[in-house]
């Protein structure tokens, strides 16, 4: 990856990747950190001559792994941090708050599946590979997440679409 490719990647893909990881972790700063770390690792690998097929998928996977790992590893600091009253973060507004709340109510795996599907446009096969699970499990989790999110965000199904879904099921 040369500098031109890197600049293009940062311009085209970085915002959406950060947004996706932030939606999953509910922590914007660590999402940015994770995506930047993943990009740097990708850069190093390409400099060593390794090929990365689908760079955005690779960076997304690594960033999400880093975020998951970081959340697990931060448990000790969090024991101490509740003593410090959290600084008031920048409050999201409107649609952001609705989406964040709806996602926060989902179990972690459903949240991840929904973000990978709807924000990063991954196929069920790609999601299954990334989450190291079966396509059937992904479809099941996605179905549940979709239902919950539709209800929480008051989305209305087109009657024709509904029939179409019913036929597929």
């Amino acid at each position: 990856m040369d500098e031109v490719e890197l600049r293009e990647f940062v311009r085209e893909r970085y915002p959406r990747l950060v947004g996706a990881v932030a939606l999953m972790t509910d922590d914007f700063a660590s999402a940015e950190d994770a995506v930047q770390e993943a990009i740097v690792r990708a850069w190093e690998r390409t400099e060593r001559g390794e090929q990365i097929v689908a760079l955005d998928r690779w960076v997304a996977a690594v960033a999400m792994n880093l975020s998951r790992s970081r959340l697990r590893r931060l448990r000790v600091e969090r024991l101490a941090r509740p003593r410090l009253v959290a600084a008031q973060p920048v409050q999201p507004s409107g649609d952001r708050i609705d989406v964040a709340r709806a996602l926060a109510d989902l179990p972690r795996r459903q949240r991840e599946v929904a973000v990978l599907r709807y924000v990063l446009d991954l196929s069920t096969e790609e999601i299954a590979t990334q989450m190291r699970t079966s396509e059937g499990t992904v479809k099941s989790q996605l179905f549940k997440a979709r239902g919950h999110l539709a209800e929480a965000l008051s989305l209305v199904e087109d009657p024709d679409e509904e029939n179409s879904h019913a036929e597929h099921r």
Partner: protein
Amino acid sequence: MPSIDDQLRTRMREGAPRPGGDGDLVERLAARKHRRAATRRIGTIGLVAVVLLATAGTFVALGRAFNTDRGPGATPAATQTPPDLGLGFPICDVMSMPITVAGAQGNAYVFTKAIDACPKPGDGHRFVGADLDGDGTVDATAPELADCFAPVGCEAFAAPDVNGDGTSEIAVSTAGADGYGVWLYAVRWSPPALEPNTVVDPQGIGNLQTGALQFAWVDVVGHAEGARCDTLPNGSTFTIFGADKMDPNANVQVTDLRIAGATATVVGASHDRVPIAEAPAPGNTLCGTPLHGSAANFPEAVAANAS
């Protein structure tokens, strides 16, 4: 009408937080890459040094073990046997650090109660105690330490005199992936006692919760927490700070405590936005005293704690 999937796609993309304009992001990524490379080089050099030192140490130890010709005045080699601190039960994994008690020298100890073998760090019952008069026996202990997580467990962290009364406070840490959680204990001379410091906030102004005083010692990308001693016109304070660093500024929250005995009273608090370069950061000293244990070369040692 768009399908539910399309509606979700639109709503979630619009609802995702977006990073601000990052004109210099590529430069920052390049700097980060250079730091990673430098860290790897230092790690390699460190590993080579450790191997060489371990080899040399082994030769020295073997030489001593097989050398029966001890000269006059030679002292026995140090053993792994833990010191007898007069506690009445066997102990192991003992860490000590010097403390000052009313101007005299003593020692603080963090140790594990031994049951058959010595439990691994993070297991077993771990305590902090203090020898107040330097006679080699522990005069006071605090209740069992909690949250001593593997692989490092709880350690003696530092022994600063945070209120300038001539007696050290004892700081004990538990190590995490990116830093430490730290508790502070007050040393009482008569009767001998070790008491956890407790925060009170009569004006309700602090950025701290009341109760047992705990603070984090963390310095990672985007965030730092720590503590320091400040001398103000109306006396010395123990200041706990946190900084969220988002280029180009940092949100810094600070709470000033006045510590008397085991009571830490909030006497001031602030919340400021400053350039990142001016944000407070923890180092490897606390109020001028060195950090002990794995924190001695903070923050370099922290990554190793997580492995």
